């Protein structure tokens, strides 16, 4: 009970801090808003999702880092992180000075903003920002009271990937990954992060209406317990909980895994390896992510970071990333290039520029105690999700 009270106070504090961010920002950066981009510092330390910062090492033709370095002189040193939690921890190392920028998803952004780890971004310095699609111009996960804390990069759903040789007929529901009697028992994939609880909630939202789940990140304890119970039922089905992408692509390649949640990156990769995989967004919908490039409040190379944010917002680069990774660009102009390069797939697979599709993805966000609706402060916050997730992982 003490924990709940402490969490209640803490959550209210978060809300107040976020609300107060309008006047004086939590990091006091409002008055220090960068007014111009100076000379590059020659180096840039980034934390990113695998596949977001390609320098030709994977495929010599896939490289949007070398042109950037040639143009700005900023040599990039990137650390690939597997989960949002890891990204948050990395951004706080060395008092926030170790990494200049991060491609944060919605379940990391608000934590970083509240803790003062990231600085407000002057979007006037990013010329392509005005072409970003409507719903990502000022989303709640990176904009507080009109103050932007990053520039949007890519977004996409967590798709259901499956082995077309083994999984027949093609699945239309997440059921094969949740059903205790699944024919693919022991060969299912799941994401190794507490945020995966939302996927369980998503399934329950469609199949157990009595629980009354509306937002999969705003779960009361009863709803959370139901989701955890479902995850524990799923545990014996799972071959391995993946965090590193190779922990999913390796078993899919070798046939040890045949179905499960994946990022478009894994789908693209396995297809490039000529493996029989396909992906689908099932009927229950999907969780997903919209990633934002954020700059550390204590960045050692702020000019290079701004240069990078400018660079990655351009349609050409966004198109390159989209085609390699499989994610959807935030810049609407990139959709034109995408359509030109891959044709109808840009709309049918990528749903490029489709605001409705984006709204239907349950984008990752940090669960807070404050439900944000009539239920008040009765929801479970992320620390509880983390504890419960440990229970799930410990049972296997």
């Amino acid at each position: 009970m003490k924990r709940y009270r402490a969490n209640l106070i803490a959550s209210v504090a978060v809300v107040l801090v976020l609300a107060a961010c309008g006047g004086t920002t939590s990091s006091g950066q409002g008055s220090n808003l960068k007014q111009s981009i100076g000379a590059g510092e020659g180096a840039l330390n980034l934390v990113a999702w695998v596949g977001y910062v390609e320098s030709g090492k994977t495929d010599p033709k896939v490289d949007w880092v070398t042109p950037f370095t040639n143009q700005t002189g900023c040599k990039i040193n990137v650390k690939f992180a597997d989960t949002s939690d890891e990204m948050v921890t990395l951004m706080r190392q060395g008092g926030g000075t170790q990494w200049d920028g991060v491609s944060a998803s919605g379940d990391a952004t608000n934590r970083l903003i509240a803790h003062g780890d990231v600085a407000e971004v002057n979007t006037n310095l990013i010329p392509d920002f005005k072409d970003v699609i409507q719903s990502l111009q000022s989303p709640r996960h990176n904009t507080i009271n009109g103050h932007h804390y990053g520039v949007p990069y890519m977004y996409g759903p967590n798709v259901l990937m499956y082995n077309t040789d083994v999984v027949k007929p093609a699945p239309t529901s997440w059921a094969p990954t949740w059903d205790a009697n699944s024919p693919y028992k022991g060969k299912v994939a799941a994401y190794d992060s507490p945020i995966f609880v939302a996927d369980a909630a998503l399934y329950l939202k469609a199949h157990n209406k009595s629980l009354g789940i509306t937002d999969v990140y705003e779960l009361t304890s009863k709803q959370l317990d139901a989701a955890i119970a479902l995850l524990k039922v799923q545990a014996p089905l799972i071959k391995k909980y993946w965090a590193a992408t190779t922990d999913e692509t390796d078993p899919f390649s070798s046939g040890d895994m045949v179905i499960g949640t994946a990022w478009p990156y894994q789908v693209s990769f396995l297809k490039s390896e000529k493996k029989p995989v396909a992906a689908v967004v099932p009927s229950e919908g999907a969780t997903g992510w919209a990633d934002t490039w954020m700059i550390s409040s204590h960045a050692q190379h702020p000019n290079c970071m701004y240069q990078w944010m400018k660079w990655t917002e351009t349609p050409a680069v966004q198109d390159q990333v989209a085609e390699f990774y499989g994610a959807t660009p935030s810049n609407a102009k990139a959709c034109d290039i995408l359509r030109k390069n891959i044709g109808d797939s840009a709309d049918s697979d990528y749903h490029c520029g489709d605001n409705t599709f984006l709204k239907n993805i349950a984008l990752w966000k940090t669960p807070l105690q404050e439900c944000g609706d009539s239920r008040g402060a009765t929801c479970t916050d992320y620390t509880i999700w983390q504890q419960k997730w440990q229970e799930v992982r410990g049972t296997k």
Partner: protein
Amino acid sequence: MAETLTRTGERLAAPPPSAVRRLRHAIGRVLYRIPAARLALLLGPILLWMVVIYLGSLGLLFVTSFWRQDSVTGAIVQNWGLTNYQFLVQEGVYRTIAIRTVGIALAVTVTDIVLAIPIAYYAARIASPRVRTLLLLSIVLPLWSSYLVRVYAWRTILSGDGVLNWSLHHVHLGSVNLGFSRWSLWIVFSYLWLPYVTLPVYAALERIPNSLIEASTDLGARWRTTFRRVILPIAFPGIVAGSIFAFSLTLGDYIAPDLVGDTEFIGNVIYQNVGIANNIPFAAAYAIVPALVMGVYLLIARQLKAFEAL
């Protein structure tokens, strides 16, 4: 004072000692008269190092386990309390994980001892000196290749389309589903620590004089009995010494379970809490568990005279 004799037999005196030399002699005299000074000079640096850097760090870790992590900002607050420990005791999952880890550590240790004894015995008592050198070399060499790469090699060997299944397929033995399981973890750990266990066992077996074995045979014992009643008891401290490393290395490993396993062990949980959740106080509290287990193991090993065999 050194003296030299010239050809005509005159004694020549050596030049008087330089200032540096006199200083050295003065220091030497002091050190000679005060043994404690010599001891302090010799022991001081290392003791200072170990106490400040190592024991101090362990102490700090212990202290950190009583603090808390702020649930909103994630910062460490120095709110003293037993919350972390209470949580560890209350939540059954941490007990499950701890028992599971100790279980596999024991399994790996026993496996390694069973595998080590024949090869150590052969090298120590049966092989010719040249073969012995070669054998010892071959046992030690794997340790010089990268630990990570060896784990990854097993990951590919044990995967669905890896060497193991390919070989089984070729001898028409079907296939196994060992990838990412407790079995693969057991195999990998046993593989990794085998050289560490073999060497102390080798040393212990090598030390047994032939005369004892001959005496045992003279008394009418078959080799099997001699092994059980004479050889094993004498080699026991060495076996325990070797087991220390197999047990300790398995207990705290956080990399192999992630690469070839599918479940959580103490190491994983601690590492995730440090590197991902940044809940260092809780990780510190959980880290006390393997430290305690190992402490008990070491005390038992010391009683069994394993330290003399190290």
